[in-house]
């Protein structure tokens, strides 16, 4: 019995995903189709790309609340520079803007030793302000409306550019986390930064690089979203933070660091995507979708917490220094 339960818990992502899909298929007529799959993957890829970066950060024991703001800033930069630089270079600049943003975060957390939650809370506010400041709080249109059509073109009946990129990245992440030394070091730092440091792993460097990695991916997601909608808007991504954290946590990545997997995140992203797509099909209002992703987040974190405390001695309150 307990073996069954623990197996169930280990593969709970798959269980949750299957349950979600089954429920959606039953409730929403015509849900089980290739079009839905393609649509779900496409919208999942936006939170998915950010979730990849966040998975790495969470494994390293850090968190980033500013992903939504970085997402907006990169998108705006990507659109704004189009007349000056042309589309390709502008997109690159947008991604680089994301990287730069997280160099700030990494600096605050690693060099100044500010708790990552607080640091990114502050930078979330700062980057959001930057986004409003750059655009004067107005959405700005892009140059080339045709390119957004190219982006949403469907290949092989399922994949778009975004979802293809997302799937390739997550497979690359899986290989990186499970097959390379750098990936193993990441887990070591996340489980116990001090012991990792004592074993000759530079914890600070790894944390810093995870911040840069996460930001770059948030930047990529922001630029892709802006190109796909042909607009840069300062309010983009404000509702993303909870959804992305929910997706990663559904995937079994632990908030305290040291545990997580790329495939888990893939499952989590697909679950959230399936859920939101299904709710949109049923024209559930946006705020109810927010309730759903919030509920999933809380439930999963509680489950994670109680299962672990059930096995071992109750852990003391989380102390982050």
């Amino acid at each position: 019995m307990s073996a069954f339960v623990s197996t169930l818990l280990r593969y709970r992502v798959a269980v949750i995903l299957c349950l979600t899909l089954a429920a959606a298929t039953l409730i929403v007529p015509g849900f089980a189709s290739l079009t839905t799959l393609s649509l779900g993957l496409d919208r999942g890829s936006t939170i998915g790309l950010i979730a990849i970066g966040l998975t790495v950060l969470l494994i390293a024991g850090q968190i980033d609340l500013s992903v939504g703001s970085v997402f907006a800033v990169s998108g705006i930069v990507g659109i704004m520079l189009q007349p000056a630089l042309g589309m390709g270079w502008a997109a690159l600049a947008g991604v680089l803007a994301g990287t730069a943003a997280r160099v700030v975060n990494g600096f605050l957390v690693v060099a100044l030793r500010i708790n990552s939650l607080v640091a990114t809370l502050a930078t979330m506010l700062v980057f959001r302000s930057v986004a409003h400041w750059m655009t004067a709080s107005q959405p700005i249109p892009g140059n080339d409306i045709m390119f957004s059509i190219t982006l949403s073109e469907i290949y092989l009946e399922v994949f778009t550019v975004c979802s293809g990129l997302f799937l390739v990245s997550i497979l690359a992440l899986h290989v990186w986390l499970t097959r390379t030394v750098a990936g193993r070091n990441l887990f070591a730092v996340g489980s116990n930064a001090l012991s990792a440091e004592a074993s000759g792993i530079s914890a600070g460097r790894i944390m810093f690089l995870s911040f840069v990695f996460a930001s770059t991916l948030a930047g990529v997601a922001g630029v892709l979203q802006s190109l796909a909608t042909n607009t840069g808007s300062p309010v983009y991504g404000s509702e993303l933070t909870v959804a992305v954290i929910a997706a990663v946590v559904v995937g079994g990545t632990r908030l305290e660091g040291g545990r997580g997997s790329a495939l888990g995140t893939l499952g989590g992203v697909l679950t959230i995507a399936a859920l939101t797509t299904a709710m949109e099909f049923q024209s559930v209002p946006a705020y109810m979708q927010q309730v759903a992703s919030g509920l999933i987040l809380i439930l999963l974190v509680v489950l994670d917490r109680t299962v672990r405390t059930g096995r071992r001695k109750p852990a003391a309150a989380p102390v982050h220094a």
Partner: protein
Amino acid sequence: MTDIAAMGQTTKDTARFSQGSRMVGLVSRAGLTLAILAVILYGSLANPVFFTAGNFVNVLMSMSIVGIVVVGMTFVLVVGGMADLSVPATIACGAILSLALQPYIGPVPAFAVAVLLAGLTGLVNGVLVGYVGINPIIATLGMGTIVLGIVQAAVGGVIVYGTDPSSADFVKSRILGVPMIAVIFIAIAILGNFVLSRTFWGRWTIATGGNYSAAQASAVPVRAVRAGAFVITAFAAGFSGGLLGLTLQSARPLVGQGYEFSAITAVVVGGVSIMGGFGSIPRAMAGLVFVQLLTNVMVLQGVRTPIQGFVLGLLIAGAVALDIALRKRGVA
């Protein structure tokens, strides 16, 4: 031999450090007062409107709404709960429900129900953080999303308007020239200060934040104390939201947006440690006064809103970095 040498080294270090820290301690104590005076001085010189009774009443009004939240948030930070990000949701809950329920049950019961429901959110937050042991920021972020969604669903996602002008008149009335809202805020601040610095609950709060295990070993009900801080914040935010709704006589779902940051900024700038175990209501209030006056000067000088947000974000990061630097030198 080496041990003794090391011990001698340590004593010397301690002596040198405590001397250095007296200077740093003085700066950390007087710094905020100086900063407030500097802002007042700059404001008075730069803008003729700044140093007038009318402007100060305005500052006091806007300070009061945030200030009530700040009182609660101080408890959360002192207990080591880092931050309560569900504040925008609880404010919206207070504001929307206290207006939306007016036609059905009258203004006073509506207000009470709104504040109670907001407090209920805090109870859930508290159970999640204190008893289940979830990271406070994640718990409150998730709860905030849920509560905001539910409140929006309850009123159909629209703006609600007040139906009882007399309740607005009460909130806008003045006692000896001081706005009613400010009187309520000051009363709550004094009450909060009393609880934090004079009662067993306050001592427990500080002990839990300072050293969780030690407090637990000393038979402090640490879980309840941690949970309590979030309940207090939610009640405060709900109350403040209700007052905000009555003042504006309209409430939209995003009415509370940004208040969590204003409150956290005020508390952190006031020198309350984000790592818990240290802080007081007067310090948080000093931080609040500084931030509000700074914002006021920026508004009067025509600084654009995004840049104001930028400055506030920098203030949080700077204050926290300073706190960590001071802790390293043994001053808290």
